[in-house]
């Protein structure tokens, strides 16, 4: 009791502050505590920022010198390219001469086919050329719907969706399903259209070494390890490959990829631009070739400017996959639809292939013959797969860089053209991230005769020997 009494009195005792006596130092202490708390909650001092004055902005504007709109044009930016004077069939007319055409992706030889031209003719007379609107606004013509049904029934999927440009197909499809936070593991040799789609999706992209399943599995394991470490909510994961790579002609080992995708719980997107109408007993693509049910591939995209001798592209898969793109596929919603006669050309091409699958045998015979004829050429090595209609001829030994190889190969291609064989060197724009070696891309067609192949390879051998000397 006394302790409490004395404590109480102590509180009310006098305080001395700077020599001045105050009654009740408890009050002073409380005031001090309040001041301390107040100061703690104050923001730290920041000198006020002075906005730039109009005069200063004017000065900065005057000082600023932008770069020119484009860099100076050099001679190597403007190589002349061949101008065709007839249809781009197995032989073509350039500068009045008949030339063997090994440069266009006319794999089944349908360019210039009379039956396709007849159906296109009828469509042109009925519908005109353009569709004059996007799919959402009266640009959906019944031939588009027919083609979508035809593709789905040909491949054995539920539905398909058409795009009016081959390059825009993958670039619209990938961002529709992958957004920020999703993971995509892609081959580092994919073509520009897919690279663009990957970039626009803003997902986390991991690349694996071109067509190397060990590297793919390593990436998948990395992702799994990160999962175990971080415990984030489940996101969408895709593996993106091409069936036959545009940049190298290699075939993707689909069986192995499907096994990996099922083991690590990823979805699969395959671009079949160069394999549709080429691989498989009836040309249904890589899944038929490897005898894998097509449902195992979640999304298939393809350009129709190859075996189908048309233009545009399509994407196919389950009904959910296709339906979602009708509102989220940028190239579908915001672009005019495919000209109707090109849709009819594709329908006719598919029908011709279904009626007469022997055209596939002719194509593969030609490819085998081409490989055989070039088996003993020095200075050139074939980098592509033996079943690929896209044959890549690389320099052996390489001159060290893409540009050096490409420049040298261009001299070979120019000489070939003088001897009436049209071949093209792979071009690569500065915007392309692919690092595969340069090569001449030869496109074999079912329309080539055996003598075309034999004489073309003979000319190549002659040019290579003369160059060595």
């Amino acid at each position, binding site marked *: 009791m006394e302790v409490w009494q004395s404590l109480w009195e102590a509180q009310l005792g006098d305080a001395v502050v700077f020599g001045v006596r105050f009654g009740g130092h408890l009050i002073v202490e409380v005031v001090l505590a309040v001041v301390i708390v107040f100061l703690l909650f104050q923001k730290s001092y920041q000198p006020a920022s002075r906005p*730039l004055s109009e005069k200063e*902005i004017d000065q900065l*504007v005057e000082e*600023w*010198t*932008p770069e020119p*709109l*484009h860099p100076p044009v050099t001679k190597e*930016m403007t190589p002349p*390219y061949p*101008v*065709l004077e007839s249809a*781009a*069939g197995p032989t*073509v007319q350039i500068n009045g001469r008949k030339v063997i055409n090994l440069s266009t*992706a*006319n794999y089944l030889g349908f360019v210039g086919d009379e039956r396709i031209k007849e159906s296109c003719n009828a469509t*042109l*007379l*009925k519908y*005109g*050329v*353009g*569709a*004059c*609107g996007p799919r959402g*606004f*009266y*640009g*959906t*013509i019944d031939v*588009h719907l027919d083609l979508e049904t035809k593709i789905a029934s040909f491949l054995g999927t539920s539905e398909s969706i058409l795009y*009016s*440009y*081959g*390059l825009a197909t993958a*670039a619209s499809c990938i961002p529709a399903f992958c*957004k920020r936070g999703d993971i995509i593991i892609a081959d580092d040799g994919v073509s*520009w259209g897919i690279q663009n789609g990957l970039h*626009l999706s803003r997902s986390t992209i991991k690349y694996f070494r071109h067509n190397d399943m060990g590297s793919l599995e390593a990436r998948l394991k990395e992702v799994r390890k990160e999962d175990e470490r971080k415990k984030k909510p489940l*996101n*969408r994961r895709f593996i993106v490959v091409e069936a036959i790579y545009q940049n190298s002609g290699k075939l993707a080992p689909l069986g192995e990829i499907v096994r990996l995708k099922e083991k690590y719980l990823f*979805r699969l997107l395959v671009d079949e631009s160069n394999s549709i109408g080429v691989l498989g007993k009836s040309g249904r693509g890589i899944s038929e070739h490897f005898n894998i049910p097509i449902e195992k591939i979640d999304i298939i995209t393809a350009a129709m*400017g190859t075996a189908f001798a048309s*233009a545009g592209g399509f994407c196919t898969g389950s009904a*959910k996959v296709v339906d*979602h793109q009708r*509102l989220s596929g940028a*190239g579908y*919603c*915001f*672009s005019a639809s495919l*000209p109707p006669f*090109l849709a009819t050309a594709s329908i006719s091409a598919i029908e011709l292939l279904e009626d007469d699958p022997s055209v596939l045998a002719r194509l593969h015979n030609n490819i085998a013959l081409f490989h055989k004829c070039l088996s003993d050429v020095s200075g050139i090595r074939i980098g592509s797969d033996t079943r690929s209609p896209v044959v890549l001829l690389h320099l052996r030994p390489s001159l060290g860089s893409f540009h050096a190889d490409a420049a040298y190969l261009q001299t070979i291609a120019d000489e070939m053209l003088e001897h009436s064989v*049209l071949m093209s060197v792979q*071009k*690569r*724009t500065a*915007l392309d991230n692919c690092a595969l070696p340069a090569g001449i891309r030869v*496109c074999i067609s079912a329309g080539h005769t055996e003598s075309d192949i034999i004489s073309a390879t003979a000319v190549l051998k002659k040019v290579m020997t003369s160059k060595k000397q």
Partner: protein
Amino acid sequence: MSTASILTLYSTYISYGLLFVLGHLRDLCRSIHRAFFAIKDANPPGYAPLCRSYEDFYARRLYHRIQDCFNRPIASAPESWIDVIERESSDNNKTLHRPFKTRRCLNLGSYNYLGFAAADEYCTPRVIESLEKYGASTCASRVDGGTTSLHVELEELVARFVGKPDAMVYGMGFATNSTTLPGLIGKGGLIISDSLNHASIIFGARSSGSKVKVFQHNSPQHLEEVLRENIAEGQPRTHRPWKKIIVVVEGIYSMEGEICRLKEIVQVCKAYKAYVYLDEAHSIGAIGKTGRGVCEHLGVDPADIDVMMGTFTKSFGSSGGYIAGSKDLIAYLKSISPGHMYATAMSPPVAQQVISAMKVIIGEDGTDRGARKLAQVRENSNYFRQELRKMGFEVLGDRDSPVMPIMLYNPAKIPAFSRECLRRNVAVVTVAFPATPLLLARARICISASHTKEDLEQALEVISEVGDLVHIKYFKH
């Protein structure tokens, strides 16, 4: 800018709110239903759903209800009268079936400004000839043996038509923007784009890797402010000066019908050393005394525009796009643009259609059909717009522009207007979110030179009747 009344705005807000609430309630019921009946998820275990639920909420709960108003298939050429295929649904619009019933309707939706959509007496025989000679496609890119003499002729003609030294063509209008912008500008550059620019420009800008800023729609004053601010500040964080600045505008804005204030914008850009990129998708061939686009219409010298872009889909009845500029610019773009180097070349008959249509417009076919078409579309557009305004509709767009949006606002009026017009044999296009801002839904009319006076009268009658039914005559006195 629209001047809707407070009542309209509030009722629109409330309508959308109701739709969202109902949509979420239905989603809730669906998940309860699934949990209760232990319905297996469509996804295999261990996989995330293919579409996140909020991504396709709009598609499932709002869009599907009025799905029959969009993607209407037609069974004829997209000219002034079309056969619209009537689809039926047995499950409340979730899926639509296609029986063989068609309905002949007046087409106010297709981009057919000069009437080249169907078979044309000058163009079609030449297109068929080119099909015979070159086939339907070249199956190769322009640099790999896909260039035919038609492509060379087309590029020369386009350059001459637009008034620039050189031009290049692409097979798709969308890809023209999305593959050219990355070639022109990259990291360290700045793109200043109009707030209502098309998705292809946004795609191209994003693909390029440069920074993108937006200025208020069609406002040269705000553009100047944005330019001053950004040049003074420099790049974000480092404050280094920008490598270059490109200002992207459109000739006619397709959702507004407005013509760009190009003269003032070009003046501002010159003062601040920015480059001008003009997208004439809707204006080339449709406005201007001889159809040369917005430069001719407003009296701007094409030499002042650094990059001119346009498409062939609208006024030429074809497909594809072009870029026109100085010889060096085109040579540079040809060496770097992925659309030129990788994509399949434009189909030869498509190129021939553009060549023939352009010749008709210039008058090189030996007749004055081109000049008559141009005068007709201008007359039709001005008459139609005037009459609609007289009736009390809120119509956007400038004089001479063939694109005229009629404001609807409320989400319920979108399907009402569309279906009632279809019932009376007029096919219209209605646009809602996300192509327009949420509250500003509209019906967009595209006038064509092939619409006759009787067609326009009939359209006006029907639109007036439906307008009364649906209460969209906001400015009626």
